[in-house]
Structure formats: C-alpha cells, structure tokens
C-alpha cells in the first residue's frame, strides 16, 4: 500500500522519460516518441471522460425527471454514449451549399483545440500536471475566451439565420461573463499571491479557501460557478443554442462528427471549468485538511489525490448539470442585465472585501 502511494505520476513520467532517452540515441526522436505517448494518454483520458460526462448528464437528467435515463445499451445503459458516437461517426458530415466551407469546417477544430489548450495547467493529482505554467490562472482565462471565436465562426459560416442569431448572442454573452470569471479568479490570486496552479493548491494545505475565506470567498465561488456556466454556454445560459427559439443555434447546420466535436468541446469545457473551480476554491487534489489535526489529516491523506480532485470536480459538474435540468432559460437582455447589474458590481465589491481580508489576515 505504501509502495503504491509513493509512486506518483511524476515519477512514472520521469521514469518513462529516462528510459526513452537511454534507449533511443537521438534526443529529438526520443522527445517526439515521448510526445506521441503523452498524446495518446491524453486522448485515452479525454474521450472516456466525455463518455462519462455524457452518460452522467443523461442519468442525472433521468433521475431528476423520474426516468431511468439510458438503460438499454450495456449494463445500466453505460454504453449508450458509445453507441451514439458510433452513430455520429456513421453520419454524413454535411456542409450546406451556401456556407463558407473553409470556416464552416474550421470552427469545430477551433472549438476542440481551444478547450484542449486550457487543459495544460490543470493539476489532476499530486505532481501530475501537463504544464505547471507560472501564470496558470491568467493563461486559463486568456485561452478559454478563444472559444467565442469558434462559435462566431460556426454561426456566421453556416449561412443560416438561426445560427447567425445564436452566434451573435453568444458573442455578447461570453464576452460579458468573462469579467465576472476574471474577478472571482482574482480574489483567490489575492489570497495566495501566486498565479501558479500548484502554488494555489499548496496554499490550501491547511484548509480549502472556501472554508478559510469566509463569506467573501463563498460569494466569489458562487459567482464563478454561475459565470462559468454562462461562459461554456450551458443552460440556463444556453442562448446561443436555445433549442426552443433557434432550434440549435450556432450548430444548427452541423451533423455527424462535426457536431460531435461541438459536443465534445462542451463536455471538456464543462470539465475544465469545474476543475478550475475545484482547484481554486476546493483545494484541487489536496485532501480535506483541518488546521493542525495531524491524525485527521493523515487519515485523509490515504485517499489518493486524484480521487480528491475528481470527486470535487464531479461535484461541481453535478451542480452545473442540476442547473441545466432545473431552470428556465434567460432572455438575452436579462442575461446581460444579470452580468452587468448584478454579478459584476457584486464581484467588484467582493474583490475589495477579499483584499481587506487578505491584508488584515482575517482568514484562517
């Protein structure tokens, strides 16, 4: 048991790295082989993750609506999403005649690539991070706002009025909610004094920020969850694809694998947003520690760090899913009212509160 615990992801990774370097004489070749292995590992992680999220979404929806959800394909319907993927692969990826073909096909690629890039600084477990960039938080908020380009591109190039309206809506929406997300991220940066993800996680060794930071951090957590739900275009903020108004919004014309890419990007984005919320507010992979209770903390350490991380992430994912299956959709002007008249002023005031708290040392 102890042996298992001591094997961390970084030691495995460095082991592989050393082995590759020693066996393959050419350094560049070794590096490329390593990258291929890493890429395959990443895909092996991401694709099942999307399957799990898709399955989870359907089951959550089902249970909330007094249904079973998928229960035919595989045990408890767990292979339903695989069947759907196979179906999507077999579908013709239609490109409408009037559309701007280059942009139309580029949009799903951009969607996937942007959300892949955001994965880099996320700390999945102890010592397991793709790139521990020293401006992690800034990097996340910078790259994640690129997604709006993909949506605008998809909506514009489709040559469809629903798509156009959906894209225009999401332009205003994502851009606006960026601010609240940024401000609530900043409140944690103030407390930790670092933009580095690993530093942020380490700073929560004696307790998660949401517990240590009193009400101000709770407020910024709530604002973060709401605003990031809007950022990733999920109900009740799914105006860009409002089914009842615009049939499917910006991806009306997409079919087959191209549509699957949007779906994939949505789920990866959902995961990323929850992962960041978990990292910043709920301590990431850090086990639940209380101050100086050494025994208690030690027991908590026995649970693997990746489980802690995934547990917290999935908890937030569940909350965001519950939003979707409970609330009606906002109207486009109410969406902006919510951001500009409620979330933004509140988070601005909240930032100052957090600053005062950090300087005075009023947090635990």
């Amino acid at each position, binding site marked *: 048991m102890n042996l298992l615990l001591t094997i961390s992801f970084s030691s495995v990774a460095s082991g592989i790295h050393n082995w590759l370097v020693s066996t393959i004489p050419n350094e560049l070749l070794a590096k490329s082989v390593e990258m291929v292995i890493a890429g395959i590992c990443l895909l092996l992680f991401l694709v099942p993750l999307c399957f799990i999220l898709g399955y989870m979404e359907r089951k959550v929806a089902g249970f909330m609506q007094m249904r079973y959800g998928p229960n035919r394909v595989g045990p408890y319907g767990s292979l339903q999403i695989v069947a759907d993927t196979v179906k999507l692969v077999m*579908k013709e990826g239609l490109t*409408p005649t009037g559309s701007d073909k280059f942009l139309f096909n580029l949009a799903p690629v951009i969607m996937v690539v942007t959300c892949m890039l955001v994965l880099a600084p996320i700390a999945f477990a102890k010592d397991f991070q*793709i790139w521990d960039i020293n401006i992690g938080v800034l990097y996340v908020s910078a790259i994640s706002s690129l997604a709006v380009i993909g949506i605008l591109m998809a909506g514009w190039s489709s040559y469809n009025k629903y798509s156009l309206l959906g894209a225009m809506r999401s332009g205003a929406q994502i851009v606006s909610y960026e601010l609240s997300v940024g401000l609530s991220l900043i409140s944690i940066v103030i407390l930790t*004094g670092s933009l580095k993800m690993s530093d942020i996680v380490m700073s929560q060794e004696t307790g998660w920020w949401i517990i240590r930071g009193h009400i101000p951090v709770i407020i910024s957590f709530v604002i973060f969850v709401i605003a990031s739900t809007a950022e990733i275009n999920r109900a009740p903020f799914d105006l860009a694809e409002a089914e009842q108004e615009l049939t499917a919004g910006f991806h009306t014309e997409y079919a087959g694998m191209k549509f699957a890419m949007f779906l994939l990007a949505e789920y990866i984005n959902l995961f990323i947003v929850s992962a960041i919320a978990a990292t910043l507010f709920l301590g990431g992979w850090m086990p639940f520690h209380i101050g100086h209770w050494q025994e208690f903390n030690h027991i908590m350490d026995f649970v693997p760090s990746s489980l802690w991380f995934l547990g917290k992430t999935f908890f937030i994912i569940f909350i965001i899913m519950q939003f979707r299956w409970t609330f009606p959709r906002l109207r486009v002007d109410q969406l902006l009212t919510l951001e500009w008249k409620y979330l933004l002023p509140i988070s601005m005031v909240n930032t100052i509160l957090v600053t005062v708290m950090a300087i005075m040392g009023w947090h635990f």
Partner: protein
Amino acid sequence: MGSSALILLLIVGIAFSVGGILISKWFAKSSASKVKGEPYECGIPTTGTSWIQFNVGYYLFALIFLIFDVELVFMYPWAVAVKKIGMVGLVEIVIFMFILFMGLLYAWKKGALKWM
C-alpha cells in the same frame, strides 16, 4: 513537461478533431442533393440572404467589455503582489475600483446596459 506541452496539446487537438471528421468521412455514406444543401429553416426555403448586417445591440457591450477587460488584466499583477504591499495596495485598488465602478454606473445611467 514545460512549454512543449502547448505544442503537444495543439497537435493532439488538431489531430483528434480533423482525424475524427476524416474518419467519419471514410465511414459515412454521402450523397449530394439540392435540397440537402439548403440552410435549415424549419423546412421552408429562406427568404433573402442570411448574411446581412443587423443590429443586435451587443456592440455597446463589446465596447464596455473592452474597457473592463483591460482593467482586469492590470489587476492580475497587483493581485499577486497585494499581500506584500499591504495597506497601500488596498488604497490604490479602492481608488481604481471606484473609478471603474463610476464608469459602470455611468454606463448604467446612460442606458448603455439596455439591450437594444
């Protein structure tokens, strides 16, 4: 892994999405027809072009956003250092935020936050 991770992620993202689309092209049967290529509008042929300029009113929001987002970027370095600076940092950011907040109030009062 360092900054090479970015290249890795970029390549994986492109390979995965382009590969997926190409694989489905391999598997999927395709046929072309005039009706199939029409833009979907509930089964009715569209009237006029879909690429027209129209006022959605998000133009103003984009402008306000631009101002606020630049301010937000300024706040990141401050946020990292504020614990070390102490009281001075707090006073500075209060003034900064106050100006920002006045800007927001002004926009609110002027009706720029109303969707047209």
